[in-house]
């Protein structure tokens, strides 16, 4: 426990907790019986899951790994845990290479899969088993298990069977298990999957207040939920088809993803054409009559646009910055504009 706390507090000079450098991974595609009979010794074709992924998670940061299903999020988490060996590149947590002995002391994995417990055993028995695998013994183990059950607010239900738990309770027990060794870095794979909106919001709040602000843990959180990424994460890495499309704060990504800043203009009359910026919404979908939403690559381009509008004989009634919808940004970053994955 002490070593983990020391590792959390110590600075490694660069302040990087998780480093992924050019990680590529492809999995063999399952072949049909016919294909196997035709060419039994031919190597099966491989499907790329990660294509040269590089990213860094700073100490004490929550980084969201945001991507659609099949983007490679879970594969990347498994590479970091050493459960999958990368074909190329390297990954390390607090300087310890993925898969090396000692990694489990600095890294905890919160499984999204709520089946990963023994359903006939109680919460306490489940946690006790994993605590034994972590090398905890006797009174220390019992104390740690009781402490963790209290932390995740399961103390009163500690002696109920896991199978009788709600989804929210199961997720909290998964968090408790990941905290057994008190690791400074947590990997969370969709921690609010299968929770109702109220429980999900409560869970997010708990993660933010307890694990992040309270403990100061570094968290890499895989999710396909935009709201979750926005509420929890300092920075978000958008992963699609095995590639990192963009990394930045949610605010940065909003502008970068759309290729500029959006402005809502109220004009009288509305000109038939605006050449200096890309119109993303017109009267009707934009809101009030005479309103238009225009995207300009740089701030100074707004002056050019306004001059053009005035030159066309229109009066500018109001100019407001428009906060782009993150969902729109996400769609723009993971697709090529035609809706197909990039």
């Amino acid at each position, binding site marked *: 426990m002490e070593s983990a706390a020391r590792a959390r507090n110590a600075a490694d000079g660069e302040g990087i907790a998780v480093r992924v450098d050019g990680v590529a991974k492809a999995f*063999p595609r399952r072949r049909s019986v016919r294909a196997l009979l035709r060419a039994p010794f031919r190597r099966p074709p491989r499907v790329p899951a990660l294509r040269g992924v590089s990213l860094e998670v700073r100490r004490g940061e929550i980084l969201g790994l945001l991507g659609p299903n099949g983007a490679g999020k879970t594969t990347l988490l498994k590479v970091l845990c050493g*459960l999958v060996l990368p074909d190329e590149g390297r990954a390390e947590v607090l300087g310890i290479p993925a898969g090396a002995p000692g990694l489990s002391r600095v890294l905890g994995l919160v499984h999204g899969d709520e089946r990963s417990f023994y359903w006939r055993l109680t919460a306490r028995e489940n946690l006790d088993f994993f605590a034994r695998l972590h090398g905890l013994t006797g009174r220390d183990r019992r104390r740690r298990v009781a402490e963790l059950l209290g932390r995740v607010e399961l103390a009163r239900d500690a002696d109920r069977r896991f199978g009788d738990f709600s989804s929210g309770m199961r997720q909290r027990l998964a968090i408790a298990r990941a905290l057994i060794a008190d690791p400074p870095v947590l990997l969370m794979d969709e921690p609010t999957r299968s929770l109702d909106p109220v429980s999900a919001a409560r869970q997010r709040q708990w993660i933010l207040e307890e694990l992040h602000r309270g403990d100061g843990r570094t968290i890499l959180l895989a999710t396909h939920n935009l709201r979750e990424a926005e509420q929890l994460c300092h920075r978000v890495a958008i992963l699609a088809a095995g590639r990192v499309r963009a990394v930045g704060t949610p605010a940065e990504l909003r502008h970068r993803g759309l290729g500029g800043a959006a402005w809502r203009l109220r004009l009288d009359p509305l000109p038939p054409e605006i050449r200096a910026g890309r119109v993303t919404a017109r009267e009707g979908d934009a809101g009030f009559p005479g309103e238009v939403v225009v995207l300009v690559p740089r701030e100074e381009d707004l002056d050019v646009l306004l001059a053009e509008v005035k030159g066309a004989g229109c009066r500018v009634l109001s100019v407001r910055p428009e906060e782009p919808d993150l969902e729109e940004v996400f769609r723009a970053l993971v697709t090529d504009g035609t809706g197909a994955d990039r």
Partner: protein
Amino acid sequence: MRDFLRIAWAFLVRDFQVETSYRLAFVLQVFGLLVSATLWYFMARFVGGNHPSARMLELTGNLDYFAYVLVGLMVSRFLDVSLHAYASQIRQEQTTGTLEAMLVTPARLGHVIVASSAWAFLFAAIQSGLYLVFGVTLFGLHLDVGSVAGILAALVLTVLAFSGIGILSAAFVLYFKRGNPVNFVISSMTMLFGNVLIPARSLPESLQWISRLIPVSYATEAVRGALLKGQGLREILPDLGALAAFAAVLVPLGLLGARIAVNRAKREGSLVQY
């Protein structure tokens, strides 16, 4: 070794907790053993009557058929567990998603594979003991114990020899997601040639040599000698030596195969898929 024992204890506690949550199943298993012992008692009476023929006594080494077959069944319980428990435990952990959770702890995969079967071995020992208790108390089995150490050594060496194949089978499961089909062949060959239910000497002469390639045939002979015929350690030493030789070859082979399979499974991402 200390790490391994700690992990094995963790699995024993866990499986005891799981098993005691299925109390009726436990009672039914004990009842099943009683039925099995009863079946073989009447089978023995049917085959040999109360007075076995000289030919049968010659083939079984002066044992009545019930005593002969009961020891065969006891040893075969350990054989079954050694061959199948590792693979079935790992498969179960894979499908329930708990294997992944175990592999992110400091516990080594090799330790997890072996230790996860600790309960199965303990249960096999309980089952074998119950066979013996039923045999002695209900069916008049006469014991003439020559060497308890010899019996234990024979069982441990049998477990080791077949564990090599069992561990390989678990690795096969990790990689291919299904049981090793060779296990069924080995089980069947063992029942036929391993002096379990029938003496290999009763088979056609042209087939009898196969029994010398099956470790269980040495184990059954050694346990029968030490448990029923009053033979000491020295008398069963040749059988123990043969078992040790099998173990010396099969255990490293199993561990090597497992290491290769696990590395491949990690590379192909199939370690924790189901």
